């Protein structure tokens, strides 16, 4: 994973609650065996509407997506994260997230920022008033800023996720530091597993 220290750029307000991962990337896209190219499928049903916010020229090239309550609920499909990254987003700001989505995002270096509804509303209002203004999210200092408006707000991120983002650490490598403990745990397990029993029949 590449390190993530700062995500900055234009922000685009999606402004809907309960955006599920079926909306982020519809299931017809899940047949692919590659990890790239999912950006074209991002919100593809909503993008059919010319007035949909991602189709509006003033938000072109945005790198930060502003959600609302419960962003990324439903299906575990990591394709939702791949689609957001492939489209060009580096961060999603919302007041709450689906658990599996947030986990997947952390693994891929898509920055997940939780802001309480009042702060999120302020940020959305600033962006709506001037879509061209720059928003910056700093992982080291844990702040969201709109420099030209003098607006800033802190956010929380657990220490491990923050460190993993800053260092670009790979989870598998981190876990394999515990190879001896895994082997020790396995030494206590019964030799015959249910799958082996089934496969032997």
């Amino acid at each position, binding site marked *: 994973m590449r390190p993530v220290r700062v995500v900055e750029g234009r922000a685009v307000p999606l402004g809907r609650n309960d955006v599920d991962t079926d909306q982020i990337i519809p299931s017809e896209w899940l047949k692919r065996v590659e990890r790239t190219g999912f950006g074209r499928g991002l919100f593809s049903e909503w993008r059919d509407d010319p007035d949909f916010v991602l189709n509006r020229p003033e938000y072109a090239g945005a790198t930060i997506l502003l959600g609302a309550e419960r962003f990324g609920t439903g299906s575990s499909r990591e394709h939702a994260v791949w689609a957001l990254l492939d489209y060009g987003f580096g961060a999603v700001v919302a007041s709450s997230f689906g658990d599996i989505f947030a986990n997947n995002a952390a693994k891929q270096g898509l920055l997940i920022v939780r802001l309480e509804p009042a702060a999120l509303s302020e940020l959305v209002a600033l962006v709506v008033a001037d879509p061209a203004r720059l928003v910056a999210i700093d992982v080291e200092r844990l702040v969201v800023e709109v420099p030209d408006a003098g607006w800033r707000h802190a956010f929380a991120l657990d220490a491990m996720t923050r460190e993993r983002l800053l260092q670009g650490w790979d989870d598998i490598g981190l876990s394999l530091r515990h190879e001896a403990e895994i082997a020790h745990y*396995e030494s206590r397990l019964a030799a015959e597993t249910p799958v082996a029993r089934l496969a032997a029949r």
Partner: protein
Amino acid sequence: MAGRTLYDKIFDEHVVAAPEGEPTLLYVDLHLVHEVTSPQAFDGLRLNGRRVRRPERTLATADHNVPTDPPSVPVADPVSRRQLEVLEENCAEFGVTLFPRGDANQGIVHVIGPELGVSQPGMTIVCGDSHTSTHGALAALAFGIGTSEVEHVLATQTIPQQRARTMAVTVEGRLAAGVSAKDLVLAIIGRLGTGGGAGHVIEYRGEAIRALSMEGRMTVCNMSIEAGARAGLIAVDETTIEYLRGRPGVPEGPAFDEAAERWRSFVSDADAVFDAEVVIDASTLSPRVTWGTNPAQVVPLDGVVPSPEDAGSPEERDAIERALAYMGLTPGTPLREVGVDVVFIGSCTNSRLEDLRAAAAVVAGRRVAPGVRALVVPGSHRVKAAAEAEGLDRVFVAAGFEWREPGCSMCLGMNPDQLKPGQRCASTSNRNFEGRQGRGGRTHLVSPAVAAATAVAGRFAAPAEVAP
């Protein structure tokens, strides 16, 4: 010291390492794999020169993408076909047991795990699918993971986890006749909301839960994720033990009794404390139908389509208006007056033998209403064979239903079983999201019995309304 919850017992037993300031590393007893969320994970292993650490703890099947035509019919869509081939290639290369399309053990991953007896009490079970919570009915800690985590589990047989908060959902009293596990879980989600269980593992308990069959318990645990909870659990009792007896993955004879004795410990202690508690009175519940575009937008079958005026906040009003527009519904319309185009009986929520029996009992001797397409997709080949042995297939076909081959099918519309834009469907599946069953499709979640009655009536109906 206070007693421990079932969740804490399973979590504690699987700790491999608990490094300071990092998530706990948990051992994974069983990893279920399917074609959609695994190809990029196997690719990752290849890129890094890694192997599958424990093939004997990994089991794969093809379910999401498979057509429900007979296996002799080739897969028409080249992208789907390629994905199924890639699963076969990956399983062969990495030594993973696979039940491919047409195999006697193939089926929806959350149907075959329990029915083959590979999902067992006290286990940790993961799968790249959010409905992995289903296996919690067997008192296994089971949850969905993303593809990066699939790769992680393949490589290490472990998963880093923060300990979740615990929530007890206690369902007191008994469900009335004609009220099913599906109606119960839809009512629970309506009460909790789509985010009410976030960050929690739910343990379902109480008299009504104890009275459910294992298959009913699977229906309840299956939809935990629709309330935001990654996992649902139900403690072991004799119903659990008897369900497992004789299944292929389970030991026999004295070894079974030994295993059963151990399994009986997978219950919450009497003095265990949960972080949150919700109590529901089962006796007040009636059949449910979702009207909107998330599973918490649910009303009784006797009810009416809600109005934006009922909203408690501007956001909720907006959500109701958006859902009404997508679903093509007018506030105040009785659900019983809403006609359907398609009826789908299937999915990891409701495609087991008891579900098919409940639906067949309603349609026996009746006909699907003119203009309605009705299909039954058994959850697995074993379910299909058992249903055919009882003659359920003939009941469905005589009534005008299609009797199809196992798979996820129209639950998520990845195969050719899809709604057309604007079509309205009574579905026994788990998600009524926009476009879930096909672009522009309108999904209403119901129980198998209500789905069957709706097929006969051509509009939402209870079984009693279509009695001869």
